[in-house]
């Protein structure tokens, strides 16, 4: 990759503080995952493999259930499609931003979790910071937190010295904060509200386990209906 150490260091310094809320949420969620995985009889090597190769919070929890219940590969593939279909939409909306990222592109796309997407879709790299390295460091740091957390959970089991219950609220709190950021931009207010409202309606209709895919499709539909208005308003 081009750019000297200075460019990379500057991007890392810009990226690290942005990832701190994700660090809190990921460590806690990943420790919980590691503990559960250990209970299911799968140790640290599995935790490392899954957090490096799947890297999807909810789906890794579901995978433990799949393995315990003896699901077939076909059932597992379908389940993964249902749970993670929302990632298709992250890819669509980031494809323009990631267009000129060269060799980093496959990794940047792979690392698009809910939280990484939320951070990078909301923000540009600060003035004077190389955006490619900024995207890269946000993505890598977040995955490192996730991997470290799942290893900690696997090794420590339930013998953690302090009660961290509830620290995973950092995740919804981060999403609310980013929502407020969008709300304060005039052009983003209507889409943000449309997403929130549509998701709520779908949650009420389809329930907590199956609402994301219908919500995503309906959100795209609602946004297309609003297209004239949103494009006219700039």
């Amino acid at each position, binding site marked *: 990759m081009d750019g000297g150490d200075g460019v990379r260091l500057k991007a890392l310094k810009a990226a690290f503080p*942005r990832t701190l*809320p994700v660090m*809190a949420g990921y460590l806690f969620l990943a420790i919980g995952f590691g503990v559960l995985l250990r209970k299911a009889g799968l140790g640290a090597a599995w935790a490392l493999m899954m957090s490096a*190769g*799947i*890297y999807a919070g909810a*789906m890794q929890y579901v*995978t433990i259930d799949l393995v315990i219940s*003896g699901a077939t*590969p076909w059932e*597992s*593939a379908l389940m*993964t499609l249902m749970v*993670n*279909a929302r*990632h*298709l939409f*992250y*890819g*669509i*909306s980031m*494809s*323009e931003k*990631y*267009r000129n990222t060269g060799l980093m*592109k496959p990794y*940047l*796309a792979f690392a*698009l979790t809910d939280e990484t997407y*939320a951070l990078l*879709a909301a923000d540009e790299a600060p003035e004077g910071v190389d955006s490619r390295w900024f995207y890269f460091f946000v993505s890598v740091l977040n995955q490192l937190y996730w991997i470290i957390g799942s290893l900690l959970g696997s090794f420590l089991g339930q013998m953690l010295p302090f009660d961290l*219950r*509830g620290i995973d*609220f950092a995740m*919804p*709190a*981060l*999403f*609310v*904060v*980013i*929502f*407020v*950021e*969008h709300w304060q931009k005039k052009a*983003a207010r209507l*889409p*943000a509200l*449309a997403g929130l409202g*549509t*998701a*709520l309606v779908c*949650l009420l209709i389809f329930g907590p386990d199956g609402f*994301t895919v219908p*919500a995503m499709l309906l*959100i795209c539909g609602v*946004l*297309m209906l609003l297209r004239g208005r*949103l*494009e006219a308003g700039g």
Partner: protein
Amino acid sequence: MYHLSIVLVVAGVTTALRLLPVMLFGRRGRSIPPGLMYLSRVLPSAIIGLLVVYSLKAINLTASPYGLPEFAGVLTAALLHKWKRNTLLSVFCATACYMVLIRVL
């Protein structure tokens, strides 16, 4: 062997879902259809709305404490952020508020 096959299937499908759109539409010189271009511009804002709901979907309104810690946490994050616009401060205070409330309520 069985465990490995399931992990590989889950990893493969997840990776495909993430890579497909970026590799398909994010290529140099490849133009994105205008409808998709428009969607990719407004989707981030809409998806944040969805993620707020998604991250709070496990909330239980029918049993004590009736989602009060969640509501208080969300309100703290939103108001503090409107006031100070400091992401870390907002997330930290909202999480602390939630962690205290789930212990005392």
